[in-house]
């Protein structure tokens, strides 16, 4: 792939770990140059096991299968660990305040996180190694935010996990369309299961905790939950971070509720602006599209 480099975000790596049922996807990644920022890798380690309980329904857990899958995750993490940089080394090169400078330049208001470090690392890779960087993330709000930075600085592009799977598909002759469909199906399931789980938790809260007294004393919380449930029901992810901000603002007052929903926060990365399709819509759309239209591999462009 010459001077193109794929920089992966934590959510993308976690998805790749979960959808790679037989480990063959990892092998296919060896065809491209992949980088992961140090900070992102820490996020991956912190969050990669969270999905285990939803994947293995906690009540009917098959211990052996759970242990085996945990071992597989550990093995896959070892693979991704080998792709990460060392931020201490990076900062020795470009100065301790590098991430702060990029944060300031882009006017990023959130505290230091994987997306900011990746954007800064992408600029470094671009300028020092003269690479075109494709940053793959499922965090659509971050994608919207950093797109201008990537475009204006001519660093490369911000894409998502679906685009990464398609890249791996056309690069590899042995990667069949059927396999791509299955990975997309795995990805869809992986992303939507937490949405279904979140909706269940919110509905459970509505039916068990919201009585007359609670509704009267906590009108805005009740209203927020109702609105969010309707949005999730319709897979409408527009402006959902407004609900997250509200829940964070009442964290002290409703600690038990907040703790019960905290594990679902990655869902808020599905937020989209305007009429843009969500990641889930994109998966469905691409899955339909590849059945109708061919994605050319190199040999397909030559006459038979």
């Amino acid at each position, binding site marked *: 792939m010459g001077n193109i480099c794929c920089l992966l975000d934590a959510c993308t790596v976690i998805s790749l770990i979960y*959808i790679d*049922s037989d480990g063959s996807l990892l092998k296919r990644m060896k065809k491209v140059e992949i980088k992961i920022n140090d900070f992102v890798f820490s996020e991956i380690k912190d969050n990669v096991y969270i999905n285990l309980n*939803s*994947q*293995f*329904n906690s009540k*009917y857990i*098959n211990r052996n*299968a759970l242990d085996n*899958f945990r071992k597989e995750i550990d093995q896959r993490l070892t693979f991704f660990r080998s792709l990460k940089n060392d931020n201490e080394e990076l900062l020795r090169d470009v100065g301790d305040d590098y991430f702060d400078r990029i944060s300031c330049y882009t006017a990023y208001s959130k505290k230091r996180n994987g997306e900011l470090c990746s954007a800064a690392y992408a600029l470094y890779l671009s300028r020092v190694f003269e690479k075109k960087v494709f940053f793959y993330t499922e965090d659509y709000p971050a994608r919207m935010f950093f797109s201008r930075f990537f475009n204006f600085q001519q660093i490369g592009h911000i894409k998502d996990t679906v685009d990464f799977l398609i890249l791996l598909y056309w690069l590899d002759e042995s990667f069949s369309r059927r396999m791509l*469909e*299955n990975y997309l*199906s*795995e990805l*869809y*399931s*992986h992303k*939507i*299961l937490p949405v*279904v*789980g979140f909706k269940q938790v919110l509905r459970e809260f*509505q039916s068990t905790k919201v*009585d*007359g*007294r609670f*509704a*009267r004393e906590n*009108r805005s919380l009740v*209203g927020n939950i*109702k609105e969010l449930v*309707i949005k999730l*029901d*319709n*897979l409408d992810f527009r402006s959902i971070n407004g609900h997250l901000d509200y829940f964070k603002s009442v964290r002290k007052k409703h600690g038990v509720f907040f703790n019960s929903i905290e594990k679902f926060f990655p869902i808020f990365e599905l937020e989209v602006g305007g009429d843009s399709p969500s990641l889930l819509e994109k998966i469905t759309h691409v899955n339909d599209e590849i059945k109708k239209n061919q994605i050319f591999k190199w040999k397909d462009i030559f006459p038979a």
Partner: protein
Amino acid sequence: MTDFTQKFKLKTNPFRLTPATNPNELVWAGFVDIKSKFERRIERSIRIPNSTLVLNWGEYGSGKTHAARYFSKLDVLQDLASKADRAVPYSFVFSLPKGKEPVYSVFISIIDKLDIDHIRASFQHILPRLNDFIDSITANIHIRSVIKAVFESSVPFLDIKKYLYGTMNSSELKSLNSVGILRLLKDDTDYASVISLLFSCLTFNKEVFSCIVVWIDEFEDIAVLNNTNIDKINNFIREILDNVPNNLLLFLNLTQSALISVEDLGQYVYDSVRSRIKERISFDLPSKDVLKLYLKDLLSFFRVGEDVNLFFPFDENVVDRIISEQGNVSIRQFNESLSLLIELADMDDRSPITMEVFREYETDIIWHKD
């Protein structure tokens, strides 16, 4: 008598209980058409041998889970069985598993609900005939041995339960070697075979149980499974229907949503399963008359004493107003609004709930017209 009962002439708030999980609180109010459809369907399966697949569909909160729970109550099933002069059905209700191993989850939830002591006591008198039946129905000697051990009282109850749960280690397994069980259950084929043979035995000659009624709730979640698990679920249902040709009634509860509607079912349920659907029971959004009948009926179940107004503590014009304000809503939303209304009135000591009282609370209880 509690303050609530004095104020509203009701034992408790009847709208907080849906869908109720305590069988004593599970009542069927109104919705006579749907009720009779289920009664007829279950009664037919009690009488006739053929296995059947039925699709129940409707919006979220339209009463599908409630129906599953209500028609799994022993007294309700016993009444239907008595009408047909047959044995009572054996009922299982579980949600479609969303985890990585759906068939294993279904298997475990069925084992969870299997009362082995009761089954052994009920089949003791026909055990020799049942064993002959087991020998005749499958060539798989291992599965035969497992099912015989379930019914055979001489096999320690804990051993067989541990075996079915897959929590037995290899040295503990030796205790079952003498009854022909030499290995653990290991894959979906094993689980489907055990469940199939178990169902066939439980309904042997319709003597002890006339039929097995299985409700798979939240079947719409098939749309969130990956291709592999969609395959597994389809194969499992097909195998069960193939291998239990008699006395099985399988209900699939499907909630229509942005994810899936009845028209989309073909994407997730293969022809081999879809072609077995013999009946569809639709939970339509209730009309004004249906809601009012339901409300009268429900209040009468919880009534303490009497009142000339069958909607008491609500004035009838309040009920009419709520229905017209909300538009077409599910029974769950109707219940939620009335629940909030009665609780707010309780807090402020307002009874009866007149139009004036309702207006004070209107913004709190009417929230979703779509």
